[in-house]
Each structure stands twice: as structure tokens, then as C-alpha cells.
């Protein structure tokens, strides 16, 4: 049986589907976060060099991953909207941006809190930290640009161009630790080699990353529902379901 995926491209069809999915993803986020936090903060062993302060990676690393990944997802949705002219794509991009900005902010702050006890400084202007800061500015610019247009369709298309323009930054952030001598350490988990951390630590970190994923999906879906209602408030189906 073929599923008509394009049917879900219409906000009207997507609205109830998203509504059904939100509680599930919210539940999964909690279901992953609780064991993740327990493993990370109570079970995982103390680090040989850093002692207890390394435990911030259970927040920091998932947040940093999400900050980059959500940008790509956002730019992907935005680009899709630009090419296919589907209404839902722009709304999805709008819904993802605040979550991405939040994770970027969390990654920067948790990084600062980690840097002080380990490196001995809150902040250095190395390539990794600087490019992550730029990512935050890109998110804020995207949100501001979208907010500056009265016509949502114009906002979607202008935002999409900016999002694609800024996407160049993501690989720079990711590879900065390999390309330059940075104070920031390299990646602890990568596709090309075995992870460089103890199994419990890795399990806790991956659980937290999954929780961050599920949280992002739940929040993005909930937010996209609000955006759909706001933008389509004059449409018959919204009025009918609102009972007016």
C-alpha cells in the first residue's frame, strides 16, 4: 500500500497527526532522560583526569550535537520549502529554530561551566568556540528575519535563503577541532573509529542524546501546531475545529 506522503505536506492533514505524536515523543524524551541522567550522574565512574567535572558532557555533548544537527534539519526543511513551495516546510523550519538556538545557548554555557574547572578559563576565542557562537547568531538572525515580514510566505522564503547561506558554518564547527589547533578536544564519538570513552559513560551520553532528540521533535511538533493555527486561522477547517 502506497502512503501518500504529500498529503501530510498540507498543514491541515499534518495538524492532527502532529497532535497525536507530541505526547509520544514527550514520553520518550522523559523515558530516555531519566535513565540517562541516573547513569550519567550516579552510575558512570569518575574520570581518571577530570574527576567529577567531566559529567557535564551528559548535557554539553548532546546539546552541541543538537545545535548543529537542528540547524541542518532546519535548513533542509527551509530549502525544501523554497524548491517545492510547500507551506508546511517553512512552518517546520520556524518551529525548529528556537529549539536549535536554545541548544546552542546550552552548549555554550555548559561549555563555559566545564571550561573553567578543566581548562582554567570560561572562554577562549578558538575556532570551535567562535564558530559555535556564530551559529547562535545565525539562529537569532533567522528568527529575527522571519519576524520582520508581515507576509508569512515571504518570511518563509527569505528565511530559507538565509538558512541555506548559513549552513556553510556547520561543517566548519564540526571539523574545526581537526583543522585547527584548538584548545577544545576532539570528538569523543565518531563514525570512523571506536568511541574513546568508557561504556557506561557512552551509554549515558547516548541516552541523553536520544532524549534531546525526542525532546526536540516533541517541541517542534507542538510549536508547529501553534504556527499552523496562527497562520491558517482564517481557513474554514480551523474555524470548524475551533467550533466557531
Amino acid at each position, binding site marked *: 500500500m502506497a502512503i501518500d506522503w504529500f498529503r501530510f505536506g498540507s498543514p491541515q492533514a499534518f495538524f492532527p497527526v502532529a497532535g497525536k505524536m507530541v505526547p509520544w515523543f514527550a514520553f520518550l524524551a522523559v523515558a530516555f532522560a531519566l535513565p540517562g541522567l541516573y547513569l550519567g550522574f550516579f552510575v558512570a565512574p569518575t574520570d581518571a583526569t577530570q574527576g567529577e567535572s567531566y559529567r557535564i558532557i551528559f548535557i554539553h555533548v548532546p546539546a552541541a550535537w543538537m545545535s548543529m544537527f537542528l540547524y541542518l534539519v532546519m535548513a533542509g526543511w527551509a530549502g525544501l520549502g523554497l524548491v517545492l513551495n510547500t507551506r508546511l516546510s517553512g512552518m517546520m523550519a520556524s518551529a525548529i529554530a528556537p529549539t536549535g538556538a536554545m541548544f546552542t545557548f546550552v552548549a555554550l554555557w555548559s561549555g563555559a561551566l566545564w571550561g573553567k574547572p578543566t581548562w582554567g578559563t570560561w572562554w577562549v576565542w578558538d575556532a570551535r568556540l567562535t564558530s559555535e557562537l556564530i551559529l547562535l547568531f545565525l539562529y537569532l538572525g533567522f528568527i529575527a528575519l522571519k519576524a520582520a515580514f508581515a*507576509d508569512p*510566505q515571504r518570511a518563509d522564503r527569505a528565511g530559507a535563503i538565509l538558512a541555506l547561506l548559513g549552513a556553510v558554518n556547520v561543517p566548519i564547527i564540526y571539523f574545526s577541532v581537526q583543522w585547527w589547533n584548538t584548545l577544545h578536544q576532539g570528538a569523543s564519538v565518531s563514525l570512523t573509529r571506536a568511541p574513546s570513552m568508557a561504556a557506561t559513560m557512552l551509554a549515558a551520553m547516548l541516552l541523553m542524546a536520544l532524549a534531546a532528540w525526542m525532546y526536540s521533535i516533541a517541541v517542534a511538533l507542538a510549536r508547529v501546531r501553534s504556527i499552523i493555527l496562527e497562520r491558517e486561522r482564517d481557513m474554514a477547517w480551523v474555524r470548524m475545529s475551533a467550533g466557531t
Partner: protein
Amino acid sequence: MLEATALACERGGLRLFSDLDLALEGGSLLRVRGPNGSGKTSLLRILAGLTRPAAGSVRWRGRALDEEYGREMLFIGHAAAVSDDLTVLENLEFTVDLFQMTTNQHRNREALELFGLERVAQVPARYLSQGQRRRAALARLALSRAVPLWLLDEPFAALDSDAVERVSELAAAHLAAGGMLVLTSHQEFSIAAPATQLIELEG
């Protein structure tokens, strides 16, 4: 020559029109009529290739609109496209070069004279009145006989009766020579045309 199928237009979340078809052959005049906000300007901008229709497509000589279309189409919108800091003549000369029209200094002068602009030809456009500005934009029509398709948005707005007559004459000559004309207008006008069509847009 100019065909549009199943056009739909949406502005600010509102659907202005949908399922609009039109076909235009040489010598046809198409008048687009409707109340304010019914999508007349949007339709013209879609036909000019500026606005992307929400659905449907526009074809010229059987092909999708491309850069070649720019050589065969003349679009005059609400704004006069006259730069304040250039003189009336410089503005005209720029337009002529931009659209790669075949003309010469003498014919440029004549075009300005036709619209009563010879006295202000060397004056920066910032000193023109609203009506003069419209005339400066429309002076192009006198040089555009070779351009088959004219798209004019409210060409008679802000013009005195003399200038209305000039535009009507040029349009009639254009149609008689096998050209096509699409225009929107609130005013009544009389343009002799071998064939006339009317599109009524509802508000």
C-alpha cells in the same frame, strides 16, 4: 502565443483567484477588470514573470518564461521606474539599452515630444509632477512597436486627457500591427482592436 492555464494567486494567505485560463493571439486586447484588491495587478505580475503563481503556469510561444521573454514583453507597473537622479532623457536611454530596443537619438526625442516632455528632457526626474512621471514611463511605448506583448497596469492613472489619447493611439496601432495588449483600468477607454477579451475578477 501567450497562454496561462489553471492560474491561482494567493496574497497574504488569501486566495484572490483560481483556475484562471487565458490565451492571447496577435491583435488581441485583454482587459482585466475587477474591484480594488481583486488581484488585477497580481495577475499582470504573474504574466510578466515577476510573481510566482500559487498554482498553474504561464507559457509564451509554447515555452516556459525565460530571459528571451524579456525581449518580447513590455511591462509597465504602478511605479514609473524613473530614477530621481537621472534626467528624463537618461532614464529613457537606460530603458532602451536595458531592453535592447532598436532606436536612435532622433526617435528618442520624438517619443518624448509625443508625450509633451521635450521641455523637461534634461531635467532630473525628481522635479517632475506625478503625471509627467507617468508620461516619462509611457514614452517607451512609442519605441516599442517591435515588442509583441504589452502588459500595462493602470496606464491611464494620473494622466490628462491628452496623454490618455496618445496611449490609446499607440495601443491601437500596436494591436493593428498584430501586437498583443493586456491592461487593467478603472477608467473607460476606447482602443480599437481586432479582437477583445475581458476577464472579470471578483473581489
